[in-house]
């Protein structure tokens, strides 16, 4: 290969040496990323007594016992799982549907306030929800939605970042001609959006649904401020409770299983769809 010649002439590292270095670094990083989850798995399979005995890399046989203890323990992990699924699932569906609708409005139609609204949404995209949390809690209290899951689901409808992603995708994947063809065929605007445009947007919708689901599944700040009753708590709140409880009294096997249960669904989804997710990361934020 000519490249190798150039390299050796210039005195730089040869391609083979560089390849070795890159693989070594990549393998080290892979280890660094997976090590924690491996220990989590190992420790989930060990009993409290075994855990106290020290560190090991080999799994034990108490996974089912630990799991059983967690499910019937003092922490409402099962209802936490259920609540997290409800919140994250509904938020993902509502958020992507309405954000796509908004992007569609900006992409397809021409109206006076279009540019102003588009600029506005882009401008507020980066503002973190935490800075308005104070007003948000007061509002939720005023409209009597405190301690309800609705307060966590409905606000997800307005997600500027999802809107932006969808708008980007439409620019490349949804030609105006399709919408016009549907109009000529007599399709109503509502129907054109739901039955013609949405299916074209499927890949982007899938990516955004996953991201919104994960974001809401992992979200701790807002739910912790809104939810008070035990049976409505989502998983991150329960994890935080585990931390603030008197730690040494806990069966450590149960602690590890609880952590594993709260991250397992996301890992499973990710491993199934990682190709699309990784490809989707780049599209939304950087333009070539």
């Amino acid at each position, binding site marked *: 290969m000519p490249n190798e010649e150039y390299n050796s002439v210039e005195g730089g590292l040869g391609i083979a040496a560089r390849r070795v270095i*890159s693989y070594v670094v990549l393998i080290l990083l892979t280890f660094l990323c997976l090590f924690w989850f491996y220990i*989590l798995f190992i420790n989930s399979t060990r009993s409290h007594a075994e855990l106290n005995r020290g560190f090991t890399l080999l799994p034990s046989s108490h996974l089912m016992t630990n799991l059983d203890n967690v499910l019937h323990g003092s922490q409402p992990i099962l209802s936490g799982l259920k609540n997290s699924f409800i919140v994250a699932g509904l938020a993902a569906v509502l958020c992507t549907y309405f954000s796509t609708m908004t992007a569609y*409005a900006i992409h397809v139609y021409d109206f006076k306030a279009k540019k102003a609204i588009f600029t506005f949404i882009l401008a507020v995209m980066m503002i973190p929800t935490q800075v308005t*949390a104070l007003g948000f809690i*007061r509002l939720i209290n005023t409209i009597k939605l405190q301690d309800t899951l609705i307060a966590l689901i409905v606000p997800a409808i*307005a997600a500027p970042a999802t809107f932006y992603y969808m708008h980007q995708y439409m620019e490349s994947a949804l030609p105006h001609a399709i919408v016009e063809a549907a109009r000529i065929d007599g399709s109503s605007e509502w129907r054109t*959006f739901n039955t013609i445009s949405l299916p074209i947007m499927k890949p982007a919708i899938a990516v955004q649904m996953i991201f919104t689901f994960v974001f809401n599944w992992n979200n701790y700040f807002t739910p912790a401020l809104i939810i008070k009753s035990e049976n409505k708590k989502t998983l991150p709140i329960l994890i935080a409770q585990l931390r603030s409880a008197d730690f040494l009294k806990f069966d450590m096997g149960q602690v590890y299983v609880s952590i594993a249960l709260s991250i397992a669904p996301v890992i499973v989804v990710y491993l199934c769809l990682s190709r699309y997710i990784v490809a989707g990361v780049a599209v939304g934020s950087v333009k070539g």
Partner: protein
Amino acid sequence: MAKEKKKTSKVVRYNKWGYIFLIPFITIYLIFNMIPLITTIYNSFFENYRQGIIQVGPNWVGLENYITIFSNGDIPKYFSNTIIMWIFGFIPQIFLSLLLAAWFADTRLRIKASGFFKTVIYMPNLIMASAFAMLFFTLFSDSGPINSLLMQIGLISEPYKFLSHTISARGLVCFMNCLMWFGNTTILLMAGMLGIDSALFEAAQVDGATSTQVFFKITLPLLKPILIYVMITSLIGGLQMFDVPQILTNGEGNPVRTTMTMIMYLNKHLYSKNYGLGGAMSVFLFIVTGILSLIVFKFTTKKED
């Protein structure tokens, strides 16, 4: 003539749907984001807190709350905590990401199984930050696996209290942030690198440039806009740092509040219903992130034209 008129009215009738489709998003945004923003700003001008069972205020105090959070050292301390933990997470992160992105994008290197590596390095980004922090807390606790591992291999003779020393407590936060975000940054930078005209690389090769020269003379300068974008969005994210230090230190920010971030402090005020100081804190954060967002906004819209 009549036909034309009919046509325009039809187009207008279509475009009315633009407004209709916007209704849900805009309504929800105004109710759940705009009104809270306004009430947050409004609350920051009032003295409003609970002392035991006595409710103080709300009384109008003007800028008193802002003066308080700056003069009692809260904002300077927590702002610098947050920035320090962001910087020391960001430096290794951007270094690793540039290196990996350059390798992944290098057509001469032809990394095998790059899909696998990308999958692995991006994974920590999707993990529940609070659960990840809880995991690190148990692993690095005084009697946890890391300490017993270190003792088993004879590196230390008694458990090292990771969360009782400023350097190791902050170090853990930085390490976790780096681990959670370097995969994401790598993918963004790689997308930017793949967008660079390959003719430039070929020309450099023909001229006999080494890959180090190519990286510093071609890739890096052309990547500058994306690097700045990544840095500022990371800084905005860093200012929101909450889950990891909150869970790791149980909301205390120990040792001696050196890991207390701004959002953790805000969270404390929200729990104790000190709406005056909490409001002032929020507005301060809003202004800082607002300025940073404007810079990002300039970047994203400039490329639009």
